[in-house]
């Protein structure tokens, strides 16, 4: 008899009287696309409250950046929003160029735009197809993966890597785009529009998808602005704020595109905004490619600005010219000092305004580097979006917000 007493389970205080169920969603969970945890209190299927925990993939980028010269920080920025790492890289290069006062030639700007818009298409494809997966529709996701492969192949031609690209340098690119890269780009531009059309046909007027996503996870424009929303999530609520148009960088003002805007800020609007943005990005890439083909002769060989202090000289010059040798040595040994100054630069990332706040005290590494990470900021609104709704809607909301853990935690 006495033995049985030792096997009694000790329940926490109040857990039998409690009317709600505590459900731990994540950090490792097939529906959370990344590592973040939500401890939800459920009343049946309805969510009474939820508490988010982040920081599972915190890698101390801001601390590491205080010890690295500028070009060694680019691989850190890759790993922020890793679905569209070229945009992070370009944003960082633009920040350094603002600090150093570097002007990039037009051809470099147009090439950068092609790469950034390809990254945006890649990011939005993942997000939209994952929203489909979370409502039960796997086909779209697997189908568009083939076309993300084409984008990865284009990155590989330019910089050698597929996902975490470390693409570009301060002032431009590490090498001119080869003919193979342009051939692959042409193949993408030819084949992708019909694929995107088919993907749209699977979801946009699909009865089940519409019933799952319309009216769930909605937020008003005032609340979204107060929560610091930017990017497609904000545009879905009706505010047409896009950094590419507000503060154009990298010659975006030379291009003709519209900003799609939603009205209710629910999951369906976010899906539609991202979908339309992919069409707009495709248009921008086509315009940029045409503009690049208009450069002839010497202009067509330009792929970087003249920044000898930060751009490694060509190897044949290092072996034959004195200045090139000195610059190569200084750059590799990290003996180049930045000008003193404080600069904030932002670009339109896949999720919104990705900002870089760089303070330099005249040394070889930043004194302080802070990343303004859109995912981190708008994830705060998640409890407000899902409270009162069903658990399955909360899962769809989580994926339609496009939460990338790398960007949340840095």
């Amino acid at each position, binding site marked *: 008899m006495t033995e049985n007493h030792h096997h009694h389970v000790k329940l926490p205080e109040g857990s039998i009287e409690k009317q709600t169920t505590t459900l731990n969603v994540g950090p490792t969970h097939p529906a959370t696309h990344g590592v973040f945890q939500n401890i939800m209190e459920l009343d049946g299927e309805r969510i009474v409250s939820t508490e988010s925990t*982040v*920081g599972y993939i*915190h890698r*101390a980028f*801001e*601390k*590491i950046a*205080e*010890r690295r010269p500028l070009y060694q920080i680019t691989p850190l920025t890759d790993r922020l929003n890793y679905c569209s790492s070229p945009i992070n890289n370009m944003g960082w290069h633009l920040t350094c160029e*603002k*600090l150093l006062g570097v002007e990039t030639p037009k051809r470099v700007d147009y090439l950068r735009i092609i790469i950034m818009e390809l990254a945006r298409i890649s990011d939005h494809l993942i997000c939209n197809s994952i929203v489909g997966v979370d409502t039960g529709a796997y086909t779209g996701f697997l189908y568009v993966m083939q076309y993300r492969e084409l984008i990865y192949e284009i990155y590989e031609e330019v910089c050698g890597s597929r996902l975490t690209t470390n693409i570009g340098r301060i002032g431009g690119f590490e090498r001119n785009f080869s003919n193979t890269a342009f051939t692959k780009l042409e193949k993408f531009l030819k084949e992708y529009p019909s694929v995107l059309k088919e993907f749209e046909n699977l979801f946009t007027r699909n009865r089940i998808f519409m019933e799952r996503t319309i009216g769930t996870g909605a937020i008003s424009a005032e*609340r979204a*602005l*107060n*929560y*610091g929303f930017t990017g497609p999530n904000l545009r879905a609520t009706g*505010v047409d*704020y896009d950094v590419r148009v*507000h*503060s154009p960088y990298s010659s975006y003002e030379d291009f003709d595109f519209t900003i799609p805007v939603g009205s209710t800020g629910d999951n369906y609007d976010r899906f539609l905004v991202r979908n339309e943005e992919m069409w707009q990005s495709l248009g921008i890439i086509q315009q940029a490619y045409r503009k690049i083909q208009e450069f002839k002769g010497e202009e067509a060989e330009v792929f970087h600005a003249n920044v000898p202090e930060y751009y490694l000289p060509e190897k044949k010059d290092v072996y034959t010219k004195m200045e090139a040798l000195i610059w190569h040595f200084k750059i590799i040994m990290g003996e180049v000092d930045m000008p003193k*100054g*404080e*600069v*904030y630069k*932002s670009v339109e990332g896949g999720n919104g*305004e990705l*900002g870089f*706040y760089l*303070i330099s005290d005249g040394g070889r590494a930043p*004194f*302080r580097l*802070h990343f*303004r990470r859109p995912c*981190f*900021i*708008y*994830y*705060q*609104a998640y409890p407000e979006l899902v409270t009162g709704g069903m658990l399955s809607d909360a899962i769809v909301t989580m994926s339609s917000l496009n939460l990338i853990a790398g960007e949340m*935690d*840095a």
Partner: protein
Amino acid sequence: MAVTNDLIQQKLTAKFGEGFFHFEESYGMLTIEAPKEQNLKVLQFLYEEEELAFRFLTDLCAVNYPDLPGRELAVVYHLHNLADNLRIRLKVFTGIENPDIFTASKLFSSANWMERETYDFFGVNFVGHPNLKRILNVDEMDYFPMRKEFPLEDQTRRDKDDEMFGRG
């Protein structure tokens, strides 16, 4: 009339008086420094004033200046007026002994987690914050890692052999 940095400066001086702020312009962005007790008053004025309308908090972070005695920690607010496309940077300095700053989370909901992150990494105590606890680091951490006094690597590790890393 067009809202320029000069106009903002004029309005702020008119409201708070001469010598209240320290103005600077850095790469085109007006940077103002205010005393830390007045941070909410300044934020409120920048928010409500019709012509200024800085109603979007872009970023909130901190910087550690170990060489400025009595002003070691600076909390930096980046504000944005979306309608007129104007940005401004507000800095408030505090000493490292009692780093108490009033929370901006009642005015801007986005300040909630950003202040938690600033507390987590720098130890800035946001007075009035609804839930000031660590957000990205482990809860058991008892120091503030982004402060300059802490080196990049964890000095308490015994499992790494420094000989192997060329630091023996």
